[in-house]
């Protein structure tokens, strides 16, 4: 089943570009939801059947595919923001940067002292590329929701690396990581809501009262 896993990882990397290139919040949120579902399916097809796997797969899909997009969509609706406006670096430039980062991820992954079993797999380059995309979105976008999306992509990148060591992470810890992510997004959603009420905008570049 590795070919299907590889296709899913390619899909994950393509979704990175969708988020980098789109200005519409709704598209970005759906893209990240799809990315979360694709990642949720991965452990299920990589390993043999077990309840542990069912729980992780189910939890991932429910959390990243349904609950988090629902929370973010709610925040978008309340803040009445549909588009990202004037990111610090333009869409074309971030897309190009994303392509460069992805290429570098492949070069870098080939040089890593990986376990022979994992050499040549897509996991590590996909993980690094997704991580870097997350950072790119986090640092170049102004709107609070876009930054949350960047954080989610970053977390997805870390999750891909974690797939290489499912046996080291007990199910309780993994469930906890997912729960913490959910609560974190929930709190961020509330803060976004308050930012939009207080500043009539969720443009984080306006948050400049506190500085030296």
């Amino acid at each position, binding site marked *: 089943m590795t070919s299907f896993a590889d296709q899913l990882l390619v899909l994950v990397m393509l979704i990175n570009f969708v988020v980098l290139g789109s200005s519409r919040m709704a598209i970005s949120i759906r893209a990240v939801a799809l990315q979360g579902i694709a990642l949720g399916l991965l452990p299920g097809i990589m390993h043999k059947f077990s309840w542990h796997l069912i729980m992780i797969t189910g939890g991932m899909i429910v959390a990243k595919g349904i609950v988090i997009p629902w929370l973010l969509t709610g925040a978008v609706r309340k803040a009445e923001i549909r588009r990202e406006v004037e990111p610090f670096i333009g869409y074309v430039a971030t897309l190009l940067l994303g392509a460069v980062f992805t290429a570098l991820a492949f070069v870098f992954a080939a040089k890593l*002292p*990986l*376990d022979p079993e994992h050499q040549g797999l897509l996991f590590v380059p996909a993980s690094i590329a997704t*991580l870097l995309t997350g950072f790119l979105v*986090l640092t170049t976008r102004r709107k*609070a929701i876009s*930054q949350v999306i960047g*954080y989610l992509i*970053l*977390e997805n990148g*870390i999750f891909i*690396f*974690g797939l*290489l*060591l499912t*046996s*080291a*992470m*007990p199910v*309780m*810890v993994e469930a*906890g*990581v997912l729960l*913490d992510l959910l*609560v*974190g997004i929930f*709190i*961020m959603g509330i*803060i976004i809501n*308050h*930012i939009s009420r*207080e*500043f009539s905008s969720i443009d*984080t570049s306006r*948050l*400049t*009262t*506190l500085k*030296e």
Partner: protein
Amino acid sequence: MLFGIVILPMLGAVLAWLIPSNSQRPLVLPIFGLIHLAMTGDLLLHTPPPSSAGWIYLDPLGKVILIPTSVLFMICAVYAVGYLAYRQERSNRVLCMGLLACLSAMTLATVAHHLGLMWLAIETTTLAMAPLIYFNHNARSIEATWKYMLICSVGIALALLGLFFLAYSTIVARMEPTLLLGPLVAQAGSLSPAWLNAAFVFLLVGFGTKMGLAPLHTWKPDAYGEAPGLVGALLAGGLVNCAFLGIIRIYQICMASGNAVFFQDTLVIMGLVSMAFAAVFMVGQADFKRMLAYSSVEHVGILAVAIGLGKGALFGALFHVINNSLTKGVLFLSSGNIHRSYGSKSCDVVKGALKRLPWSGGLFLAGFFAITGSPPFSPFISEFTIINSSFAQGKNFTGALFLIFLAVIFIGMASTVLPLVLGEEPQDLAETDYRDRLLTVAPPLFLMGLVLLFGLWLPAPLMQILQDAARLLEAKP
């Protein structure tokens, strides 16, 4: 018992949620704080053996963090009753729940010996604190909360990646993949060095963000400045320690791996950079709560330098953890009182606090002398131990820089604190309803007493715990 001490504060949080009365709810805090303190005392006397799978164990390092956490929480809980009596205009339900949830998570971090579980606990403290920083519900506090939430979440996510690298180093070394501390320390020598280095760097960046090591400290002045005093005290004296424990755990593995130089040098450099940042921004700071945040950046820097130096400085580092917590408690609680009384935290307005609030002003002044390492207070002893060890190891340059930064910070902080406490009170000051009362003065006064006591005489059992813990951190050849 160990499970009980983690679960109990959570029950307290549920109870706080159920109590409808805004004026009686804060009483939950000292009740559960006292039970927690009693259980901590009992755990110190009769330490249970590790749990069967090795996940939960209170080792001496955990004790060093648990003691100040429990004491500081108890003090802050008593203070909260007095403080929240002034803030009845606002619901304190979320505050009480968040404080207790945070206590539970901090306790879990100290007893967790599975690094994944410890990561979870530290992440939970981050989440539980976010609503507390937003307690004042204004534009400034929301900006601070957003920065705190985003920067710390990303930092903690990177720490998770560091943990994955650590687990991966066991796979590359053809060992049973694990994140349990015991096996990792025992087999540290055979872990893949490249992945161990990567794990160390990511964990240092991740937990360093949470701890506020420069240049990852940018959220700190905002969060400490906008949070209520008692939340600031728990951030600077509780959460910082938990994140430091995260760094200590990876340090333990690195020291056992037999290649200590890279890790130690990195920590020394990061610590000195933090102290330099603090020294630069402390001078001429116009907001006294932000000044305390930079003081916190300085002290996490001291901790990093100290464990980076190793040997004799390890005892100093662990003792400094306790001293820093207690002294930060004094400073944040008394600064909270001053802030309440003047209705401002700008140093242009707040002057002559000693006349207006003799107790709080006096405590703030004493706390300032203690935190800058003046004798006879206990931070003097721990800082002296660290400097002494630096010169004894022949690391004169590190020791000299350390001393210079301490001196600059003393002068910078004095230039803010002395006019604030001793200056002439402005004439056109608005009256506020805050007066020094027993419940808002006795808690920081008690902490100040402890700081003075430990400076003059360190009880033998505490000394024993500190020495045992320092022994766990020594580098193996």
